[in-house]
């Protein structure tokens, strides 16, 4: 049966000084697809390894299904894990690899054989029982690793960048299949990735990590549309970041970036003093220069990068370079490099960030 995971105030240091994981709190719900996302070295693997029981937290507790497992050894945790390089046993056949966990649980041979066949069917590898892992392609090894992890009907499935070694096309189809399988089995999934597109596409919720700390936890759309911190806004997708002083001019709140640029804010920032805000490129509307209403700037197109479904513009405006993205759906005028344009946006698309 799937279980919730509660990580409370967990810190891990390997050398006693630097904190690989720093006072992390996460409440992962039962049956949830939960991703740990962040740049290399931010502590994702360490967090996952503490959940699996390969590392012990220096401080804090980890509970699974309400029971504290902080000091329970890995082999008693009943969790499935798909390792970054799959970690298939090279001296055992595919069937023996998949059946390993069942054999450790003392299940009889006939039952193991049946469950192994079922699990291999789940990952579409029927008939591969007698091959050696070394005789399989990367994608097939990945499926064997997945079958080996789910056949024990784990309370939690842990994945450390499981798709990282696959080429792009295969990765996309595996993303889809993995998500389907997780839904079908109702598994609680903790999924480590440094690929933001992968995290956004697959997750129910994402924890964005940076330097051992959790920056933000939220659904993909919360993370993308309402980034909480400057780091999250910068790390996830393309974004325009502005930094300035908040001033109030007759009822409206304005961020004064410099003498050329002031940005109207839709909401009152809680703090005073310097402040960062973000504006996504696709929230900017480009039109031919002229009478433009509301918030906006005039600029010159520096380059237009045609991306098929959309066009990404680099625009020189107010002494800085901004990114703007327009859908290529016929409703927007397309501009060439060197064209003069007007940029417009609505104040509610400006997201106020914590540093």
């Amino acid at each position: 049966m799937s279980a919730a995971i509660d990580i409370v105030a967990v810190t891990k240091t390997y050398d006693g000084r630097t904190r690989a994981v720093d006072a992390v709190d996460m409440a992962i719900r039962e049956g949830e697809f939960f991703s740990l996302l962040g740049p290399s070295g931010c502590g994702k693997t360490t967090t996952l390894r503490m959940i699996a029981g390969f590392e012990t937290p220096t401080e804090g507790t980890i509970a699974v299904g309400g029971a504290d497992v902080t000091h329970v050894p890995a082999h008693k945790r009943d969790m499935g894990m798909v390792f970054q390089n799959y970690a298939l046993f090279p001296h055992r056949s595919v069937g023996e690899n998949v059946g390993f966990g069942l054999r450790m649980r003392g299940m009889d041979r006939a039952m193991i054989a049946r469950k192994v066949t079922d699990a291999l069917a789940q990952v579409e590898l029927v008939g591969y029982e007698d091959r050696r892992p070394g005789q399989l392609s990367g994608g097939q090894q990945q499926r064997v690793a997945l079958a080996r992890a789910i056949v024990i009907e784990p309370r939690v499935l842990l994945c450390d960048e499981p798709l990282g070694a696959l080429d792009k096309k295969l990765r996309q189809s595996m993303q889809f299949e993995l998500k389907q399988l997780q839904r079908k089995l109702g598994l609680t999934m903790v999924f480590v990735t440094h690929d933001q597109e992968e995290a956004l596409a697959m997750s129910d919720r994402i924890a964005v990590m940076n330097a051992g700390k959790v920056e933000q936890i939220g659904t993909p759309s919360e993370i993308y549309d309402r980034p909480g911190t400057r780091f999250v806004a910068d790390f996830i997708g393309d974004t325009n970041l502005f930094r300035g002083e908040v001033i109030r001019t007759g009822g409206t709140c304005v961020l004064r970036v410099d003498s050329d640029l002031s940005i109207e804010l839709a909401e009152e920032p809680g703090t005073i003093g310097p402040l960062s805000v973000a504006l996504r490129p696709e929230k900017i509307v480009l039109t031919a220069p002229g009478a433009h209403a509301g918030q906006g700037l005039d600029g010159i197109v520096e380059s237009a990068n045609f991306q098929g479904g959309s066009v990404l513009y680099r625009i020189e405006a107010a002494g800085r370079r901004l990114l703007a993205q327009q859908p290529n759906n016929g409703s927007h005028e397309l501009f060439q490099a060197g064209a003069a344009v007007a940029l417009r946006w609505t104040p509610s698309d400006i997201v106020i960030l914590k540093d």
Partner: protein
Amino acid sequence: MTSAPFSLRFGRFCYLAFNVGVVVFLLAPIAIVFVFALNPTPYIQFPPVGVSMRWFEKFFASRDFMNALWFSLEVAVLTTVAATLFGASAALALARGRLPGSRAITAIMLSPLMLPAILTGLALFQTYVLLDVGRPTWGLVLGHTIVSIPYVVRTTLAVLHNFDTRLEEAAQNLGAGALRTYFEVTLPLTKPGVMAGAVFAFIVSFDQFPISLFLVSPGHETLPITLFNYLKFDLDGTIGAASVVSIVLAVLVVVGLDRTVGLRSYAEL
């Protein structure tokens, strides 16, 4: 145009000649031993005058040689078991145990390789005299084991260093405790290294001379010592026959281990 293929051919010829030279150099002693063992004259003669089994008959008929051969085998088997058990577990502890000073310990474990064996033999001899234990078989086995352990440690460490510890973690994750993980994953995958070490241990013990020189008790000697004593008075083909038997036994041990437990790695599978 014409010189390029020639220099290429010449290069290939030199390369081939060099390799043949190396192989001949390595095999020549063995060939000489065989010629010596099969030649009927009671002294070393070249070219040989014929083929006979008389030296083999003499060797196998000699009680001294037979006792020495069986004693050597007994010591070699005991040494192999002891050195392999100790060396393989020591290597595992050194590679995995996060021991303080593991580098220093590794160096100490390998040090008998650097020390002349005759010094190790002398040191053990003096120790046994001090302890007043006489010259028991276990003392001899202990001496052989000390000089065999470095080979087992070395070959096992080599495999362990290239060993992906995530395989052990995968086993634990699937419910295997420490002991099961060792027997299901670590041992099978490090077996080629352990077995290579065991083969070395067997050969080091079976051919051991300097250590045995100090530690055997008179009248109860290993084959190399008996051969040495025989050589002092007679130099006939029996020495050659004994050497051939030793070589064949060593080959049988290697082939036997390969057939039963396997020396090859799984990497190629």
